[in-house]
């Protein structure tokens, strides 16, 4: 560690004012520290020390787990961080590094990984590697020989080779290994079970646990005829006679069903497939190119619902943005009026819906809108039976109402701030020139307001376009469209429909879901870019 330390230690701001206020003193302290005091240096070293310790620990753990690439990345990043903070010149990097690291970990990685998954067949039945699929298929292909008894088993060892000392129900002991079929022997018995035999070492339970891998593989043939099956022990103390009905040929990459003779081969679809197209599941994960994207747009089950779901998604997002914005704006103008009493109280009341978690409020609304028992029908409307959530049209209206309730406080806050930043003298000047209030609002205030608010409206559009929470919690997309071939409903947005397509029933299709999310991202991004371009013209007002 040859790095020298910053020399400029002279405090720059201390003692400039004869009697510094509390804030000034605080600022001076911070400036002092920032210019490289000894304490600050110590703090920096300690913080870097902790980070390095964590990095070294992580590298050891990762190397231990065989994750070489990740270990290398952690190492390189740790070295880079040290280099940046011990250097004298890298001032901008000192500010940027933490942010960049967090951005990469929490944003870039997630996006890139989603992109990668979109090109794989990851989902139910294609969950792990080929090796795992083979071992899982082989394990579940073991069938216990019908009516075969339970054998008492002791695991024994001879010069490093494991064997099973088997006691059959008649009390006869025999021993064998993977190579050597069972042969009858005389053994030391204990409680009707053979526990030890000359020439072999009996394994204790701890030894058995320590050699789990070998014992899981250990299959002792019952006789010279392989069709008699082999004895295996799942728990180290009891053995059962199994026959396997699958055979794996590693060189040819094929699985053969021994009972029917069907050959399943790896034809590049991520599962062993027979000549007539039957798949053996589990399969494994492979990259499939653009298959998921093609499926996303050509799925015949989606053809019909996709159109109206897309239209409704746009309608929902646009109406939500417009309704929340105008209600928020109206309230902001009203509460901005100096003549109103108790404005602070009202303002707090207005912000309350924003403070309650949105899925909680959506659930409460769902309860209030129940047709027969809901608060709205029963109490407010005196026993009316309005199908708030069960009629296709009413459900759409209800969703918009609830989203308005959830969304207007945000717009209210934003508009309030923006209105207060518009100087009063503009309004005075306009009034002096004889402009009516509506004209002042429409021609002066609204355009000035939009300069600051327009980007937020675009963000709000993007948010509502993917507003999963409200739909999922309030209607779950319902009422269901009984004619659609997939369980889609009349209030489903694209994002909730995708969720249903990719995750309904017992199948999880992460590849398809990722492809959809990329498509939705592209739609939203294109709309946002166009909208941002158009709002640029507003900026010329200032």
């Amino acid at each position, binding site marked *: 560690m040859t790095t020298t330390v910053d020399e400029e230690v002279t405090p720059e701001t201390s003692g400039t004012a004869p009697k510094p206020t509390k804030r000034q003193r605080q600022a001076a302290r911070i400036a002092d520290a920032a210019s490289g005091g000894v304490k600050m240096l110590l703090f920096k070293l300690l913080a870097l020390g902790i980070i390095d310790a964590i990095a070294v620990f992580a590298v050891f753990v990762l190397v231990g787990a065989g994750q070489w690439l990740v270990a290398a990345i952690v190492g390189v990043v740790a070295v880079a961080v040290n280099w940046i903070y011990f250097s004298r010149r890298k001032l901008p990097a000192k500010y940027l590094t933490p942010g960049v690291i967090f951005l990469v970990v929490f944003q870039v990685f997630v996006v890139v990984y989603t992109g990668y998954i979109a090109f794989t067949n990851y989902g139910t039945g294609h969950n792990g590697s080929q090796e795992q699929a083979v071992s899982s298929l082989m394990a579940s292909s073991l069938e216990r020989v019908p009516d075969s008894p339970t054998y008492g088993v002791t695991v024994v060892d001879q010069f490093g080779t494991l064997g099973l000392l088997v006691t059959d129900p008649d009390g006869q002991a025999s021993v064998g290994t993977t190579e050597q079929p069972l042969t009858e022997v005389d053994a030391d018995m204990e409680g009707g079970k053979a526990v030890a035999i000359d020439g072999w070492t009996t394994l204790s339970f701890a030894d058995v646990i320590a050699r*789990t*891998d070998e014992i899981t593989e250990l299959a002792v043939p019952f006789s010279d005829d392989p069709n008699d099956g082999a004895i295996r022990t799942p728990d180290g103390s009891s053995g059962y006679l199994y026959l396997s009905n699958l055979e794996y040929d590693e060189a040819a990459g094929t699985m053969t069903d021994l009972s029917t003779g069907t050959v399943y081969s790896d034809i590049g679809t991520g599962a062993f497939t027979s000549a007539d197209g039957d798949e053996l599941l589990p399969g494994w994960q492979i990259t499939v190119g653009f298959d998921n994207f093609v499926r996303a747009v050509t799925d015949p089950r989606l053809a019909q619902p996709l159109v109206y779901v897309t239209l409704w998604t746009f309608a929902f997002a646009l109406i939500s943005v417009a309704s929340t914005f105008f209600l928020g704006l109206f309230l902001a103008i009203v509460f901005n009026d100096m003549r109103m009493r108790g404005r602070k109280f009202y303002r707090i009341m207005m912000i309350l819906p924003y403070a309650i978690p949105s899925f909680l409020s959506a659930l409460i609304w769902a309860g209030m809108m129940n047709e*027969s028992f809901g608060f709205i029908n029963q109490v407010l409307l005196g026993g009316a039976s309005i199908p708030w959530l069960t009629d296709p049209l009413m459900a759409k209206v209800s969703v918009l109402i609830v989203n308005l309730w959830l969304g207007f406080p945000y717009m209210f806050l934003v508009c309030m701030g923006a209105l207060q930043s518009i100087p009063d003298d503009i309004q005075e000047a306009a009034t002096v020139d004889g402009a009516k209030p509506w004209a002042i609002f429409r021609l002066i205030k609204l355009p000035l307001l939009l300069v600051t608010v327009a980007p937020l409206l675009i963000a709000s559009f993007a948010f509502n376009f993917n507003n999963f929470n409200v739909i999922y919690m309030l209607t779950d997309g319902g009422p269901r469209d009984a004619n659609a071939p997939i369980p889609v409903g009349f209030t489903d947005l694209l994002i909730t429909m995708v969720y249903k397509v990719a995750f309904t029933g017992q199948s*999880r299709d992460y590849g398809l879901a990722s492809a959809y999310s990329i498509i939705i991202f592209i739609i939203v991004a294109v709309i946002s870019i166009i909208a941002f371009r158009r709002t640029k013209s507003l900026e010329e007002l200032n």
Partner: protein
Amino acid sequence: MRVNKKSLLAVGAAAVVATLGLAACSTGSGEADEAAAAGGTLTVWVDAERVDALQAAADAYSEEKGVEVELVGKDNADIKDDFIQQVPTGKGPDITMGAHDWLGELSTNGVVAPIELGDSAADYLPVAVDASTYEGTTYMLPYAVENIAVLRNADLVPEAATSFDDMVAKGQAAGLAHPFVVEQGAEGNPYHLYPFQTAFGAPVFGTNDEGYDPTDLQLGNAGGEEFASWLGAQGKNGTGNFNTDIDGDIAKQAFLDGTAAFWLTGPWNVGAAIDGGINVAIDTVPSPTAEAAQPFAGVKGFFVSSESENKVAANDFLVNYIGTEDVQLELFEAGNILPALSAAAETASSDPIIEGFAAVGAEAVPMPAIPAMGSVWEYWGIAQAGVINGADPVATWQKLTSDVQAAISK
């Protein structure tokens, strides 16, 4: 050489960094050694509500066999997906708690290893062993069997009903407009209506020697259409005994308020009813026909991960330890669900509530775990909800059958 204060500091800092680094690696390797010496660690994912119940068993096992058992409490809703995602990465647990209807999905994803119950299979309730078996192989060690039954307010109606109509008549005699409630929803709730459907002789799937047969859809047989007609007659345009606006909370409230005397629900709601001061009796589901009304049985149990490096210990822990009466009873006390081990079930049945559920459970059939069931769930409830709300029963039921058939053969 001129040594100043700052270079001293720098050297000191370097020493601190190095020490921390070394300390980090020494702890890292130390932990690994310790675990290996003690004969391995079993990581078990457990429903967060049952961690305490299993803790004593886990400690006792560690004591006896020298295998550390680490219980990780997880939210029940996340266990299945987390297990499927994490097992292939090697980061998953050795054992997880779960339910039998996950089996199709777990096995299709290759994340579970078979379990051999051996001779002990005969010690379990038959429905529990059936449910733990998928395509002829046993994958789960069962610990509890759960099914729905009718909760009766014995203060309002002192005698059990003999049939569905008798139940409604008895309730109305007690002065209640709608004496029977069952949880439904805008998209129906076929799980709770299944007993009535089976009473008409329409199970979802036929069975073969490996269990449910996905190629033999029985849902749409003549009995199914009869059931649909009956359901329509009990719906909105009929007697109104079934109402899709009644969800779980509304049903519960009606029973607690005494406006309903019969509530078709599961053991998870008994506590609330007793706490609400209701004199609860458990009855079998009153059948609308002469046949028995068989509900679904959900069986809870433990799975071994296919990627576990400790399979021997995992199997030993499950089969020879969790499968004992004491442990099954301890789990029973935590959840109040009938134990899957016959001996434990008998002991637990000294409680009349449990005995009531066990009597219904004797008629229950395991909920199908085959992947084709996913396609059934997708359309089943919405069709039933449609029938309750006045859609043409037979036409709706036929469309349900053809939709499900199409989805299965897709």
